[in-house]
């Protein structure tokens, strides 16, 4: 018997625990060979209120077991999203969350308000790895107060589920996790990319035009498992694990470490069928161990 992979994450019922990560699936319409029925949910490419051009090339660099990206949140802005993409999402049989971004808490709030009630939008993932322009460009995600303030502002403007995506560049992720939990987050996603740099020996300067980029891919997996686990230990709301998942075994590490679900990003670039394969592999693992459902999976989650 096929094990039951359904999972409830903060008000959203997912048919499986594997979610497409923001920025690695576009708006869900372009991935070739995608088996949509394997998707538990999808998080859209990060969006701002207004359209953004993005950063000049080069935007990506391969690194050992990973890649750096500096796309600069290129995107059409919220109006085009509502017009061009949400209507298609409304027809799909899995929830689509919108990854929202801003330069001030008010901008995040405004975005949520604009998208609240739009058919096809099932919830929000707040990307707090953005610089807070009002506070001199410090990242929201590094500062428990700023992170909580963004969360609270969004929370007030929508009834849809609000997930907060944490940055890994902190000394204690538990502090931020608890701050956004108290501010009303329904779930956490851990983690976004790590900041990295790569130098071009022929120009004696960074390879990326933006100089730094976010590191993703298998290289960061052990760090992501640790951080997702630390976040899960710190809070009562569900945690969605993200970072370097390419195989079912990788996803199972996050699930055992206390995550309710997982997201797959970079691996989709390499193998467009990754999500379907991870999903099937999780089912196969549960079956081989005699578990009837994902909820039977033993978790390693000593509480803080």
């Amino acid at each position, binding site marked *: 018997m096929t094990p039951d992979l359904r999972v409830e994450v903060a008000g959203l019922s997912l048919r499986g625990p594997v979610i497409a990560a923001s920025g*690695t699936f576009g708006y869900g319409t372009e991935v070739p060979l995608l088996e949509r029925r394997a998707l538990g949910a999808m998080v859209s490419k990060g969006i701002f209120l207004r359209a953004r051009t993005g*950063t000049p*090339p*080069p935007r990506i660099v391969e690194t050992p077991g990973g890649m750096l990206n500096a796309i600069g949140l290129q995107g059409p802005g919220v109006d085009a999203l509502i017009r061009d993409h949400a209507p298609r999402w409304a027809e799909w049989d899995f929830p689509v969350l919108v990854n929202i971004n801003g330069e001030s808490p008010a901008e995040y709030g405004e975005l949520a308000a604009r998208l609240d009630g739009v058919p096809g939008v099932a919830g929000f993932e707040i990307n707090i790895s953005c610089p807070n322009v009002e506070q001199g460009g410090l990242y929201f995600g590094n500062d428990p107060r700023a992170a909580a303030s963004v969360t609270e502002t969004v929370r007030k403007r929508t009834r849809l589920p609000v997930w907060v995506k944490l940055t890994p560049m902190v000394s204690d992720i538990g502090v931020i996790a608890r701050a956004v939990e108290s501010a009303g987050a329904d779930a956490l996603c851990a983690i976004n990319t790590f900041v990295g740099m790569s130098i071009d020996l022929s120009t004696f300067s960074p390879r990326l*035009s933006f100089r730094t980029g976010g590191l993703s891919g298998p290289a960061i997996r052990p760090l992501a498992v640790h951080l997702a686990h630390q976040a899960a230990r710190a809070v009562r709301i569900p945690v969605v694990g993200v970072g370097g998942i390419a195989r079912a075994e990788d996803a199972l590490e996050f699930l055992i470490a206390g995550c309710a679900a997982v997201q797959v990003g970079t691996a989709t670039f390499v193998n*467009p069928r990754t999500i379907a394969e991870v999903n099937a592999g999780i089912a196969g693992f549960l079956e081989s161990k005699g578990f009837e459902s994902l909820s039977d999976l033993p978790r390693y989650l000593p509480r803080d």
Partner: protein
Amino acid sequence: MNGGRPTFLSEAAITGRREVARGMFVITMHAPEIAGSVRAGQFVNLGWSPGPLLRRPFSVYRVDGEQIEVVLKQVGVGTAQLLAMRAGDRLSCLGPLGHGFELGAGPRSVVLVSGGLGVAPMPLAAAQAAAARMRVTWVHGARSSADLCSEWHGDAAVWATDDGSRGATGTAVAAAPEADLVLACGPNRMLQAVAERWPDAQVAVETYMGCGTGVCLGCAVPLARGGYDRACMEGPVYRAAAIDWSALPSHLAYAVTA
């Protein structure tokens, strides 16, 4: 889905390899679906294990029954590993990707202008132009005679070398005759010269690529009208004048002379 056209993912067995210029090799692999549907200028994204994380994009050089061919030189780890493979080894082959050259119905003559590894999409372009009953002029340049691709296709050929060791001394662009349609591929510096001479030429550019399938936005091509689009979806073939050449970084691998 790739703008509505089908994309295939298959394990392609390597079936052969031949040297076509100094250090430049054609690898043949068995990929029947792609062989049956690829258009000149489109590319495949190749992966293998153990190997680098990301796939490596290569133009389809030629189609031969159920085989497709790619041409490459060793420029880094990925190409070194590809060139160390033997017949029977398998590559994961994703494609055809991107928009290829538009041959249209109007033009009666075409000139294919390539520099160095920029020869990559040209044999297939020559075959498809010939099938569309165009007169094909093959123009190919490289640093020196030994670097010229020894294979050519079409009704006439023009050669150019930097050192004058074969054909015209100078660039392929300078050596090329006029025609109804110009298709070009090579180092960005060369393509910029193409853009100056023939704003309406179709050029195949290269960029770093993350996915090759339109989802990562890593392959940004700066457009003359402002903004970026994706080499792997809207490209890699562009109208020469559509590109903001000053903002497009130079990639080295395509170019023997860059």
